[in-house]
């Protein structure tokens, strides 16, 4: 279970770092239809980090049709962000893990920390995605009318 200090730190990181990074990521790639991304958000609420990560890998490696390559790009980028966070940033940059734990304890703690970090990151990602998808959809008729 996360300590109060860890929860406070994750909440701060969510506001000061993860939000901006989620917005920046969504600006680099095309938004997904809202329906396609809600499964991801639901997974952050009910799954362990291991299960969530497996879901992301599964989505990334699916044989997507050409018209849905954007989904593959999205999950590829998300997997990169989370694996970097798990291997390096949670320890060195965010300093969220307790020093001196044995490897089994450290892995358990890292998974709990990552579950919380990814929940925050994905919440920001989904909010930005849905806003951009809707704005794009709303602009499309206007652009068609101008042609």
């Amino acid at each position, binding site marked *: 279970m996360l300590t109060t200090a860890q929860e*406070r730190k994750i*909440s*701060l990181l969510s506001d000061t770092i993860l939000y901006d990074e989620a917005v920046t990521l969504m600006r680099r790639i095309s938004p997904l239809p*809202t329906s396609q991304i809600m499964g991801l958000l639901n997974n952050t609420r009910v799954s362990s980090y291991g299960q969530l990560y497996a879901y992301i890998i599964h989505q990334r490696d699916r044989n997507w049709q050409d018209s849905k390559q954007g989904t593959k790009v999205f999950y590829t980028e998300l997997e990169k962000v989370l694996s970097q966070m798990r291997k390096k940033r949670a320890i060195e940059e965010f300093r969220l893990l307790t020093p001196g734990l044995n490897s089994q304890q450290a892995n358990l703690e890292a998974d709990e920390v990552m579950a919380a970090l990814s929940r925050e990151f994905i919440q*920001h990602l989904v909010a930005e995605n*849905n*806003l951009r998808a*809707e704005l794009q959809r*709303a602009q499309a008729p206007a652009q068609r009318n101008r042609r």
Partner: protein
Amino acid sequence: MSTDQKTLDYDMKVTREVSRQAEVFYDEAVKLGDHAARAFGGSKEHRSQMTGLETIANSTFKTTDVFDYVKKQTARHREWQQTDAQSGAPNESFGERLLKQLQGEFTGKADGIAKRLGVGNTTDEDKQERRHIHLLLMRVFIRQMVVQYEYAASFGNTRRRG
């Protein structure tokens, strides 16, 4: 001076700074409240969206929870996407205007207050305090905006105050 007294003094200074800023951005809150009234009207369902925003702002400790809520509502509801020909930014939807105000404007204002109060920007405690100030500014702004929305929507009066 005791630690309690120092904390009390500091809290008073924060309250005074936030109140001062509230005077400065009051007109903008009124404009957005009017925009909301024109976009939403006064039905019960729409009123609950505005009070929902206020509840989120008052109950969370994270500024980004409010940003995400505004984005979610803007993506989901047509009213949040309504532009307002009478506003100074006729191409911007209500949601976009609100987000711009809460994110952009208030980050600078919170930093200004923090600087005046001698709050740094390096330790986690400093950053926690800066976002606390940011959150206080947002809460006041949203309260002002929702009050104006209620007023304008109740009377079907969306004219600017005289």
